[in-house]
């Protein structure tokens, strides 16, 4: 059956591959920062686990566990790959750029640094799936928030 272009954009091979074989999947043993995110209306769940550098500036390790649709799981997997090793400030900037990308809300300031995350741009055409793509990122933000005193 012929596929619509929008659907092909939404579910690119790289995205399906991340959802089937998620990277950085698992928990980080304590001490670590952790947050749970869910979309109650659809049942998607993501737990984000991260460890900061000694000075608290850098995200040295980042993993996730969860269940849900291909978009939510692929976004989480790709996020961990891109964010791991970055500074908190860079992570916040990338989160904002990613949000702009999937919502079609303005131009990302540094699209290049998003790397293959730009493949999730197809979500723009499916507004109800934005919350799926953003789920891991919301959890990441909450986990970082929990580390600030």
């Amino acid at each position: 059956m012929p596929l619509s272009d929008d659907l092909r954009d939404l579910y690119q091979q790289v995205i399906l591959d991340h959802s089937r074989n998620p990277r950085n999947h698992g928990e980080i043993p304590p001490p670590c920062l952790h947050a749970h995110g869910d979309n109650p209306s659809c049942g998607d769940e993501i737990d984000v686990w991260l460890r900061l550098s000694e000075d608290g500036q850098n995200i040295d390790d980042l993993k996730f566990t969860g269940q849900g649709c291909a978009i939510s799981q692929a976004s989480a997997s790709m996020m961990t790959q891109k964010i791991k090793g970055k500074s908190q400030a860079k992570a916040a900037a990338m989160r904002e750029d990613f949000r702009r990308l999937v919502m079609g809300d303005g131009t990302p300031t540094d699209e290049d640094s998003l790397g293959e995350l730009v493949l999730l741009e197809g979500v723009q055409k499916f507004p109800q799936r934005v919350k799926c793509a953003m789920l891991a990122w919301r959890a990441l933000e909450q986990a970082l928030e929990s580390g600030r005193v």
Partner: protein
Amino acid sequence: MDWHRIRSDFPILDQQVNGHPLVYLDSAASSQKPRAVINALSHYYQHDNSNVHRALHELSSRATDAFEAARKKVARFIGTATEDEIIFTRGCTEGINLVANTWGVQNLRSGDVILITGMEHHSNLVPWQLLAQRTGATLKHIPVLDDGTLDTAAVEMLLTEQVKLFAFVHISNSLGTINPARELCAKAKAVGAVTLLDGAQSTGHMPVNMLDIGCDFFVFSGHKMCAPTGIGVLYGRYALLKAMPPWHGGGEMIASVTLEGSTFKEPPHRFEAGTPDIAGVIGLGAAIDYLEAIGLENIQRHDTNLSNYAMQCMSEVPGIRILGPQSGHRGSLVAFHLDFAHPHDLVEYANTYGIAMRGGNHCTQPLMKRFKVPGTTRASFYFYNTIEEINRLVEVLLAARKFFT
């Protein structure tokens, strides 16, 4: 029956979605409306619109007559002793909350048990949780077996004399299970429990008769049976209704009012404060006329044929797990889980081929947990669906398997 001609009564079905003919398989969430119902609404607003029960002018008496005639129709449709047992609500949810907040608050005490089942829609669960918190009563539930039916041994154990209310669903919106309503109501009656039956998925799909089933309260929603959204019915046995305090106060429900206090009308008007959804009630009456002209037995037979055919074809899709009773008597819906695609991915995929289904927890989160699935996809049928549409669904499921694996 000429089901293809009947299908043409539904103008909405004749359209393309994403370049494909619409295949509407979400009637368990909300059914489509036949021209007869749409015309009844239009006629009412063009010719008779006015408030009911108040003014003495011609339009008001026409509106009132049509409104009260619809109440009589509902009473006959669900087989009640009198139309005074029919209360118009916004839908099942409001009906259940009305019972919880009036009969429930008046009759439940600490130590009493409210019994439900593990397959209730949130609308027949959350109001009882709130009532239990408020009164100190305990909420218990009958477990669901792996085949999607109720654990009958547990019914015997749990249905004790402490049970003051037994509320359960007639047909499960997530499993398709048809519960033995008459038998369960008789058992409840034997221990002195009042029963509330949630008829959201059964009314309009099969004949329902209050006197035959023997329940004390019954709720249904118009929009799931060809009527407009925003209108539903609570049936209550008159002796119970008569003893119940009002819920919402306001116009329409009072007999006399002074600044110090008020007296209230008899049921059903005691429970219908404010201007009701008059057009909705008239539309509901038109829907009942329409369904009765086809015949509820005919509808049930056709629904059952469709769902049996769907079960048979869909069970051949590799990686599918169909929830609920695997054979025999079941409601006209098939809820399933695929090992290759999450429900939302599948629903999105099917939508691009013009197929409308529901994916998620279907407002039954405890049941999803019970069957250890993150959610399911549900294809639900009504008499306007066709075998060709089910073939189309299976074709798309097979294509989805190729796409997602």
